[in-house]
């Protein structure tokens, strides 16, 4: 049954979790302030009231312990969803994530699965400084054994969270704070969407062409998708027809959709809110170049944070984060047009 509700991303995530908790008693949630508070970014709102504190477990501020406990619970047959709160907090618990969750299925010859979701808030733009504003997409996508998803809207968030919970391996679920639809943080039009009331899962590794175009391909993920669409709409007024691709998942990565698009348009701009070097932007450009470098009619361009920690100062932060104007300028440069 379709619904005309307009759901925020945060409510879409908590609805997906609630539906999986109803259908599978092995699913439970834990993390800091995920109970009565509902998660500081709203991803677990309403769950404590329905499921109680045995299945919605507030933890102390001890990421090393509760991420490790999540790995153990998953290996023992549960399906934990563990919230790390900010992605930036991975530092103290990375051993549990990349040496335990990511590798145990390999180390056990496939005998010990780790069906675990680690969800975390990403992104900046609201003056929360360098330890609360990163996306770190590539940090997690680089490590074998982890799937990494980062939805740009409520419909995708619900379907990808459902798929993440049902997945038999560890999934890093990255939601962008500025897309959650929180009362205290503005989110772009298009982040909240209509979506079905019943449960549904979206497959990992399928990018979505949000706007077909013939002149240039813009590839983005998470918040940057909205800036890319804004840029594409502005460019359309000048007769430039940009194709916008939302990757939706980093691992697995839908290289085929990007390659096919660039084969058609001949030009590529990749935009990412992560650091520029050794990241998503390079991976996407390389994927096309390895397939056929002659697809490029002009050098591919990338927009990302220029290898500095995210500044606290608002003007400085706004300067380093890619926005629609930056994307439009890169597109014009790629097409050899004056800004």
């Amino acid at each position, binding site marked *: 049954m379709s619904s*005309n*509700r*307009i*759901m*925020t991303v945060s*409510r879409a995530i908590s609805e997906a979790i609630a539906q999986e908790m109803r259908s599978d008693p092995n699913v439970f949630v834990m993390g800091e302030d995920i109970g009565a508070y509902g998660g500081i970014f709203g991803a677990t709102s309403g769950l404590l009231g329905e499921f109680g504190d045995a299945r919605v477990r507030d933890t102390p501020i001890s990421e090393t312990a509760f991420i490790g406990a999540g790995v153990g619970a998953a290996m023992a047959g549960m399906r934990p969803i563990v919230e790390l709160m900010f992605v930036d907090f991975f530092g103290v618990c990375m051993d549990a994530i990349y040496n335990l969750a990511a590798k145990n299925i390999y180390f056990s010859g496939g005998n010990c699965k780790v069906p675990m979701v680690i969800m975390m808030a990403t992104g900046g733009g609201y003056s929360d400084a360098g330890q609360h504003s990163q996306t770190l997409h590539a940090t997690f996508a680089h490590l074998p054994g982890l799937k990494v998803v980062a939805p740009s809207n409520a419909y995708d968030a619900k379907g990808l969270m459902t798929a993440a919970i049902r997945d038999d391996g560890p999934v890093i679920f990255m939601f962008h704070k500025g897309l959650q*639809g*929180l*009362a*205290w943080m503005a989110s772009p039009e298009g982040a*909240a969407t209509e979506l079905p009331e019943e449960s549904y899962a979206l497959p990992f590794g399928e990018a979505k062409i949000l706007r077909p175009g013939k002149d240039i391909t813009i590839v983005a993920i998470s918040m940057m998708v909205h800036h890319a669409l804004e840029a594409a709409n502005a460019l359309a007024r000048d007769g430039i027809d940009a194709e916008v691709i939302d990757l939706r998942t980093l691992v697995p990565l839908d290289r085929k959709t990007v390659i096919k698009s660039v084969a058609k348009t001949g030009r590529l701009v990749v935009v990412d809110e992560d650091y520029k070097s050794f990241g998503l932007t390079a991976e996407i450009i390389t994927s096309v170049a390895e397939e056929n470098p002659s697809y490029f009619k002009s050098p591919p361009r990338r927009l990302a944070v220029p290898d500095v920690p995210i500044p606290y100062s608002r003007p400085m932060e706004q300067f380093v984060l890619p926005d629609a104007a930056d994307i439009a300028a890169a597109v014009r440069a790629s097409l050899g047009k004056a800004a």
Partner: protein
Amino acid sequence: MTDIVVPKGLWDTQKTPEGIVANWFFADGGNVPEGATVAELMVEKSTFDIAAPNAGRLHIVVAKDGVVKPETVIGRIDGV
């Protein structure tokens, strides 16, 4: 036509005189079921869900980001 009213006493107006409509969860003119969460209010950093008093077509009176107080009519519902 039924009013969607911010309940009296929903928050302490001595401490915080006003709140805002943070989100509408249905479009203006959309059909809503009885009891559905139609809107979310924000007061300081707390939020309150507002439910539809009956089923019908929604008319938004106070748009997103508009200022509200207890007893403000934020919308109306045309019964079907």
